[in-house]
């Protein structure tokens, strides 16, 4: 077992009180540990009975008010430092998927890879996005160019615009995520400009990239060409310094028409209740706190979510085994998980580990699921469910 070693000097420096010539340290609250250290002198001072000639201490806590920690001078909050790269030696262009203007985990990993490539030689990361994207600076982006082509629909126009930008900006690499949208766009672009594509890179440096081939029996290695797609979970996302994400004007590119053989492209509504759990994006799950399963299914339909369940419920036969979430059921990849009456056994939480957002409704304030959740409601799930359905109905009638 390895544990990070404590550095007592560093811990003491963190507690140094400023503003005095003589060094002084705060010794009552150690900043590194969550456990508070008791200060017997301060406790005794708080328990002192006032007015008595002789020292009298009342330990029952009636005389002493609350034991508030002594006030400390508030430290001025430093503005977050933004790393600015004024004159980059080269550009690493990244085309994230960013559905709905939010970066996906793979997009963040892609930006992490681009950050490493550009930091190795004094370059800058340039994001080419269709529509505005949130949180680019924290993800390590130096420059952004918003593109004109529509984000959905026919990718022919997007391909033509990217080909124009590749010629105009001359980035050293153009990186795509190896996802359905990004992989498709990268292959269209590679075919359009007749360049090599390094598809599904599992490691990526300026000198060498590797990818699996031949049914994952062979590893191909080469210096990365201009166009690269990155496999999921191959790189860590960028953390730490915030970059400026300065907006650049898009160079003038003649707009390309859509392919004349494509008549229409439209998204079909998702039949969420028939989806397999592993594919679902939004899961509503029932645990022992739910007794009315007709109501639960109605709620899942009203929210447009895929119904799931805990092991307890599936063992009791109240929900099918295919709906079980957790280590022995399905490990979810959903964006949001709404847990109704689930306290959160470790095996269940493992199934939710990759969910981005968790909402919990539970009667127990100290349940593990409440700790995991971004929004926790301490209430009976049986009473919240009809209220949710009624609220959704009232909104749809308005």
């Amino acid at each position: 077992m390895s544990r990070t070693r404590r550095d007592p000097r560093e811990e003491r420096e963190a507690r140094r009180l400023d503003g005095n010539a003589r060094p002084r340290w705060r010794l009552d609250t150690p900043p590194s540990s969550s456990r508070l250290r008791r200060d017997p002198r301060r406790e005794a001072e708080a328990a002192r009975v006032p007015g008595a000639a002789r020292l009298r201490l009342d330990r029952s806590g009636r005389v002493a008010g609350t034991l508030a920690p002594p006030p400390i001078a508030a430290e001025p909050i430093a503005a977050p430092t933004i790393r600015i790269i004024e004159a980059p030696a080269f550009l690493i262009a990244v085309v994230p998927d960013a559905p709905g203007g939010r970066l996906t985990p793979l997009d963040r990993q892609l930006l992490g890879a681009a950050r490493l490539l550009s930091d190795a030689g004094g370059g800058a990361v340039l994001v080419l996005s269709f529509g505005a994207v949130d949180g680019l600076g924290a993800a390590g982006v130096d420059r952004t160019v918003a593109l004109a082509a529509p984000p959905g629909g026919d990718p022919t126009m997007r391909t033509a615009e990217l080909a124009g930008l590749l010629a105009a900006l001359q980035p050293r690499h153009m990186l795509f995520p190896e996802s359905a949208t990004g992989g498709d766009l990268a292959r269209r672009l590679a075919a359009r400009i007749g360049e090599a594509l390094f598809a599904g890179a599992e490691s990526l440096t300026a000198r060498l990239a590797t990818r699996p081939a031949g049914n994952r029996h062979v590893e191909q290695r080469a210096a990365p060409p201009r166009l690269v797609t990155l496999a999921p979970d191959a790189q860590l996302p960028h953390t730490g310094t915030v970059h400026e994400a300065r907006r650049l004007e898009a160079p003038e590119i003649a707009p390309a028409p859509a392919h004349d053989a494509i008549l229409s492209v439209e998204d079909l509504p998702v039949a969420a209740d028939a989806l397999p759990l592993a594919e679902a994006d939004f899961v509503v799950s029932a645990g022992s706190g739910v007794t009315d399963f007709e109501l639960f299914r109605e709620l899942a339909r009203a929210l447009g979510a895929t119904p799931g369940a805990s092991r307890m419920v599936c063992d009791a036969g109240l929900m099918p085994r295919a709906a079980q979430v957790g280590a022995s059921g399905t490990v979810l990849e959903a964006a949001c998980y709404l847990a109704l009456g689930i306290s959160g056994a470790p095996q269940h939480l493992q199934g939710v580990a990759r969910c981005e957002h968790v909402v919990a409704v539970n009667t127990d304030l100290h349940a593990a699921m409440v700790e995991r959740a971004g929004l926790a409601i301490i209430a009976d799930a049986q009473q919240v469910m009809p209220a949710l359905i009624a609220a959704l109905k009232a909104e749809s009638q308005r």
Partner: protein
Amino acid sequence: MKTLVLLSDARHPVSGRPAPTATELQAINLARGLADEVSGLHAGPDAEAARGALGHGLARLEHREIPAGHDPLPSLLAAIGSEAPDLVLAGRRAGAGAQTGLLPYRLAEALGWPIVADAVALAVDGGVLEVIQALPKGARRRWRLRLPAVVTVHPAAPAAASFALGTARKGQVGAAIGIPAPLDEPAMEERPYRPRPRLIASAAAGAGAAERLRAATQAAGPGGRVMVDPSPEEAAQAILDHLRAIGVLKPASGR
């Protein structure tokens, strides 16, 4: 309606023996729903793997013989020019080799035809092809395009027809010499594949078992908002507002 299915020189992922790939067989199945007679096209040194597809409902196989390691695109273009199909179907990735999935795109670009990736259903109505495309998270997209077109098939498409020895032996193979096209760029260095660990940000390397369990089961960020004993209506409104703020639910129509 003439449909051509591109077949790769596929290998079984475990045994390494010549065997057709699942998505190519699913493509044959989809094509049989549009036309009675479906032909296959393969360009490569031998057609042993592609011949296996004859038992899964392929009527005829065109083989263009080219040396190993050559680019199959010119031979395929020549064969498509002489066959003049309305629709060219392909698998998602080849069953062996580099498996970049780039060939259908290069083919569509060279022909000037539209390409749709990851089809799960096809229908034709008066020269207009309707393709249902599979997207991640169970989403589907409907494309309507004028034929001719190139379409690649997703693994979620209906399962392939099972193998029948009789049809496999009845199927005809038309062999011809293809156009040799050696590749300009040098071949990439190849090594035996070594699986790499999936990198997960929250689980610190070298952390103890307790830390790794916590990283696997708890949120990375600070704890969220807790509402203790709200009325059911308040709770419902808070949940709906939160779901809208994180973009899971669409904004209410009335606002």
